[in-house]
């Protein structure tokens, strides 16, 4: 069901009024892969994600989906191809999980149209994929943080987009729930072929899970490529301004970054 879509940014300048956070950024998202965007706080990662999903108008440059500027694609049409899970969406008081997940069907429906069997199937599949089926009749305020994040993921899945952008999907979660969410994204990518783009705080989890790593510094892409190519002491120095050592993760073989603080002995 998934078609490969090309999402790219060219010469992008983004900001809020006078404050420019991204300037002259070029980026290509590899279709059908899992991409993680990393960078220091306030480097513009979330801003970039907002621009890629039409939420923010670039001051210069363009975001292109299959060659068309995203701001020229009708919103509902775009929302059937590209979904964004914001960092802190609002769950209305007393909403049930099934109702919330059902709202992911919005771009597939027209005003006053009836709820279809197709909508039911999409919601059921999303609940199943995120293992939230048994929560369907609970209200969202009764859920734990980890369950809640899975429910939001289910809503994004019910939208059935070929591209899914997530803004720090693992923030505020303990390590078990972080792994649960990232595993879900891997399954989504593997089973449905969804192109996943996520902003992540944790460099090591990003390197562990992503096929493609993008490091942002000084308003542009510092480096992009496989985690092994990108996650080096030089990148960490340039992006976060700290010294580090990078070793091979014994579990996955991916690079693992060990930061070196002021009070830690240098290896050399």
């Amino acid at each position: 069901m998934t078609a490969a879509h090309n999402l790219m940014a060219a010469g992008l300048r983004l900001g809020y009024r006078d404050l420019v956070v991204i300037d002259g950024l070029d980026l290509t998202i590899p279709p059908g892969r899992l991409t993680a965007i990393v960078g220091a706080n306030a480097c513009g990662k979330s801003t970039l994600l907002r621009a890629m999903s039409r939420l923010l108008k670039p001051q210069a440059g363009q975001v292109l989906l299959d060659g068309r500027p995203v701001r020229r694609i009708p919103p509902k049409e775009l929302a059937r191809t590209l979904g964004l899970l914001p960092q802190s969406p609002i769950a209305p008081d007393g909403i049930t999980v099934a109702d919330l997940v059902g709202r992911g069907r919005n771009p597939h429906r027209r005003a006053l149209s009836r709820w279809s069997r197709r909508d039911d199937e999409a919601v059921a599949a999303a609940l199943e994929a995120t293992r939230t089926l048994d929560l369907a009749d609970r209200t969202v305020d009764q859920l734990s943080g980890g369950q809640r994040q899975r429910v939001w993921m289910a809503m994004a899945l019910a939208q059935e987009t070929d591209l899914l952008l997530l803004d720090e999907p693992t923030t505020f979660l303990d390590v078990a729930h972080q792994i649960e969410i990232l595993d879900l994204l891997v399954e989504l990518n593997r089973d449905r072929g969804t192109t996943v783009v996520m902003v992540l705080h944790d460099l090591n989890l990003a390197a562990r899970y992503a096929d493609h790593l993008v490091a942002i510094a000084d308003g542009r892409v510092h480096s992009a490529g496989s985690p092994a190519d990108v996650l080096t002491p030089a990148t960490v120095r340039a992006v976060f301004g700290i010294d580090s050592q990078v070793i091979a993760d014994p579990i996955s073989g991916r690079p693992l970054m060990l930061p070196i603080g002021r009070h830690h002995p240098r290896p050399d």
Partner: protein
Amino acid sequence: MTTTSARAGRRWTRWAWLAAVVAALVICAGASVAIGSRHVSWDEIAAGLSGSTDGLGTAAVAKRVLRTILAILVGLALGLAGAVMQGVTRNPLADPGILGVNMGASLAVVTGIAWFGLWTYTAFIWVAIAGAGITAVFVYIVGSLGKGGATPLKLALAGAVTSAAAASFISAIVLPRADIADDVRSWQVGGVGGANIDAIAQVAPFLVVGVVICLVSAQSLNALALGDEAAASLGERVFVARAFASLGAVLLCGAATAVAGPIAFVGLIVPHICRLLIGVDHRWLVPFSALAGAILVTASDTVGRVVARPDEIDVGILTAILGAPVLIGIVRRTRIREL
């Protein structure tokens, strides 16, 4: 599939509530026709309903029929407007009365009566809609100033202040004008007692347009409820969706105020009760609030005719008595948050 059966179960509950609400509305409408300052017999009711106005009893019934129709229309408009305003602003305190929209509409109407000699309902309605729209935009801008944007409490305060200011202006306009004071006063308290066929016929088209806009907006309101970013990523044009839904609410408030004066709290109470009954899905909540609003106004009007016989208490006073405790209850809830 468990979700499907659960969904079916909820749907069934909603249909059951819908039937109950429709039945309640029919009962209230019946009571509104049958009960009043003057006791009437069943024969007189039957004669009055068939259009006869011979005799005091049947004339009273005929008048009450018009009054009931107007109460239903006004209640429907205010209930809908409240549900839509709460959805548009994600604010549990949003209500055409609290946000000052109805008082703004009144100020416009009173200005029109006093200075421009307006006298047709259609003129009242246009002016009231303009006043409602200007006030809505003004209150939203004032409530959005400062840190944190349009929080529920700031918006309510901006509305209350605007409402008070508009009420003062109305007094300032009316006080020196003995010639219009009585008319304005009885209209301003909020009532449907002056119902006549002209008012109903002229307000109906505006209400139809407003109702259609609000019903069409219900699905967008569902997306907006998840926050602006989530709504946009679900394919909504957030600003356009808000503006369109607000237009529907403003039309309804303006039209209702033009014919019945500023009635507060209906738009506040009704959506909250409906949410308790049928949940937060606007595709149900919006039409449900219309029916419940009609019940509340019709019932309040009927009660107002009975409790102070032979005098009447206007609808606006009764809804305020019912609504004030609800308002305090909502504000006092431990977490005031955006919907």
